[in-house]
């Protein structure tokens, strides 16, 4: 494996999100959804806060600690899901999961935006859980809210 492969993993846009995370912080709203998620094998942590109104994610923020992949993924995800319906956000999470596992996914179905840069993770199986941490947190928050 060469530096080329590393460059596939650590793309410029990923490192930009790591260095300048978007939506880092906490929401002010009282009725926000708050969910904590850990990666127990490595100690990465995220707290995700979502504002959902009429079945739509109107705002999203996160706090946490972790590697470049887990933190940039959270930054990109919060950008990508704002304005999506709950169902589309959950569907995007499925697409994302397929993408980072190297499975076929429909590129045109939803606009992944910067998130697509994480495709290179599929070459690094040990890092898939880093990439999916924020997404699992979102799934948990939205599924709990549905019930």
């Amino acid at each position, binding site marked *: 494996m060469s530096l080329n492969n590393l460059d596939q993993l650590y793309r410029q846009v990923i490192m930009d999100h790591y260095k300048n995370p978007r939506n880092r912080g906490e929401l002010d709203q009282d009725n926000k959804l708050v969910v904590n998620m850990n990666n127990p094998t490595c100690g990465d942590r995220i707290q995700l806060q979502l504002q959902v109104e009429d079945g739509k994610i109107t705002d999203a923020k996160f706090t946490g600690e972790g590697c470049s992949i887990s933190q940039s993924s959270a930054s990109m995800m919060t950008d990508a899901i704002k304005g999506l319906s709950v169902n589309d956000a959950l569907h995007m999470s499925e697409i994302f999961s397929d993408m980072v596992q190297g499975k076929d996914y429909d590129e045109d179905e939803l606009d992944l935006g910067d998130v697509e840069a994480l495709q290179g993770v599929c070459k690094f199986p*040990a890092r898939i859980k880093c990439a999916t941490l924020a997404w699992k947190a979102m799934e948990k928050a939205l599924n709990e809210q549905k019930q």
Partner: protein
Amino acid sequence: MNIKNIRELFPILNQQVNGHPLVYLDSAATSQKPVSVIEAISQYYREYNSNVHRGVHTLGTKATDGYEAAREKVRRFIGAASTEEIIFTRGTTTSLNFVAYSYGRARLEEGDEIVINAMEHHANLIPWQQVAKATGATLKYIPLQPNGTFNLDDVKKTITERTKIVAMAHVSNVLGTINPIKEVADIAHRHGAVLVVDGAQSAPHLAVNVQELGADFFALSGHKMLGPTGIGVLYGKKALLEEMEPVETGGEMIDYVDYYDSTWKELPWKFEAGTPVIAGAIGLGAAIDFLNEVGLDNIHAHEEELANYALDVLSEIEGLEIYGPKERAGLVTFNIDGVHPHDVATVLDTEGIAIRAGHHCAQPLMKWLGVNATARASFYLYNTKEDIDALAAGLKKTKEYFGHVFE
């Protein structure tokens, strides 16, 4: 000690990973296995696989002999007085849980104290949290010095006449600290407490004598000392084990079974319910033969040399922080400023270098260090200075790479 010859006995080391020769620096997680261990396990399955302690037939006798011979090898290896004190388990975690359940929960009550410390691996920490919760006993922590060692005065202050159990790692899996077990044992015994020693990181690397150490219980894992996974040992003083109830009951461990009551076999079999890990024990026996042939003192000296070399080479890298004391076992835990240890491990992996990144099953210690995770390179008898040079080069590359993307 000829490392080149030793390396040839470990077939796994002779391979390319991601286009580079494998540099295996994760032996504190699990060690690699020499051909003799692999062959011993294979030979058991090919030639005399059979259940132990029951068959009248020839293979059953051979299997029993092999299994019990391994127990005697372990006894000699750790300097126990009798094979009655050597219980085969699944590993250190199981061994420590056995003590927590069968000794801790049975003996402790409200007002009693269990003394541990923040450098313990989760395996020697959570079982005691659970005992404290179940019995109402108090969990007390011996404070650590800034360099990750104990001050014996602090040990003396923490252990009181209410202390019933002191649990301590012989060697820290993160800091590499070699703890003063003998001194701690003396203090514990003066207060009538027992000392439970987590030997997972010491037995593979140092000559251990449980009687000289004063350990009442001592746990180790086969897979960290050239043996297979799934086999470990619990050593306990006979007088203590005799008074303890078995944790698991069932086949193999009984003396006589009636409708409403049963009696147990003598030691050590009363603690070995069910068909044991026969091949694992035989493999561990072969691993001990190998370690004895090389010599634990030689292994320790070699690792000391590697650790010192690593400290020298790595401390030259700017922005790299090393945790733990100067005098240490063969491992170095560190962080590079601004690069998460996961990212460090990924870059090194692309160079064929295997290290551990994460919290090393020691989250309270990470809290104490004020970090979320660290990177760890750990050494064994098959590692060389060239391995450490490769690590240093890989770390410089990591820094450059991340420095570059941060520009």
